């Protein structure tokens, strides 16, 4: 249930990029598999807040990003959506998480006249 605070921050950051006279058109986000963010709940919070703040018809694109793991036994790196799966190279469970913990704003699009 921390998605609301995350949505507040996403909109704050997106608004910070807005050029005067332009309005928000699209926000693209990467949601890491290990970020403990529920994409549906984040989308709902973003839609509600955007509407409240007067941002009309902003498209939201939330992409789920797999975790990147490093096997400490055979050294390969692999992506997975399921941390219950062992290393595909050597079946080891001796792994390190390299990425997939973050929620990232990839880009913001805006439209306006100039």
């Amino acid at each position, binding site marked *: *249930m*921390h998605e609301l*605070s*995350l949505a507040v*921050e*996403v909109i*704050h*950051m997106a608004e910070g*990029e807005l*050029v005067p006279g*332009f309005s928000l*058109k699209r926000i693209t*986000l990467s949601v890491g598999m*290990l*970020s*403990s*963010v529920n994409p549906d709940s984040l989308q709902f919070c973003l839609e509600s807040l955007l509407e409240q703040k007067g941002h009309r018809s902003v498209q939201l694109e939330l992409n789920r990003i797999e975790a990147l*793991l490093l096997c*400490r036994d055979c050294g390969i790196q692999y992506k997975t959506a399921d*941390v*219950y799966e062992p290393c595909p190279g050597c079946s080891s*469970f*001796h*792994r*390190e*998480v390299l990425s997939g*913990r*973050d*929620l*990232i*704003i*990839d*880009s*913001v*699009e*805006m*439209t*306006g*006249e*100039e």
Partner: protein
Amino acid sequence: MTERTKKVKMLSPVMKRNNMIAVQNRKTITDSKLLCINLISSPGAGKTTLLERLAERLGGRLAVIEGDVQTSRDANRVNRAGSYAFQIETGGSCHLDAGSVSEALQEMKPFRDEWEFLVIENVGNLICPSGYFLGEHITAGMLSLPEGDDKIMKYPALFTRIDTLLLNKIDLEAQLRFDLKRAENECRSLNPDVSIYRISAETSQGLDELIRYFESERTQVYS
């Protein structure tokens, strides 16, 4: 006048602002030579009971920030046990963020010279606190035996980022079907460098060893 579309590539973590405040918190904590521990668990795992036991042993060397949705019960418990405690009431929020800790640190000033350890007891929750760095040196995740030995992989966001796993209520091992090896192996399977302590806040089992670990970490940070 023509309609134009602009695209700004950001690639910015949403935690960026939180993390910047956390770095300031770390500086405040470091200036006073405190070792800071962010303690995270589900409600009822025994965080406050552990802090009471630590307060009895460490007394004036320990300061605590208590994060709760409501009431200052936990701060009162730690106070009665012999240590300073500052209560943050989040008023509904399910986690502490760096900003709320920063405000608490300001209100706690001036820091007492005798303080060596600052434990931030997070809001009881295994999910929401896991993404928020507060400026701590050690992120400690606590799992108590009655919760079950399958919880590590169910909450990977927390258990893959902790430095230390505290398995609490070890005194109940004989009564519960909790496979300690399973929990420890599963935690190490995604977090190979985690240090693990089996403790009982109720009976004080394992607490001397835990305090020695905090002491040696503090020595390492400030030597």
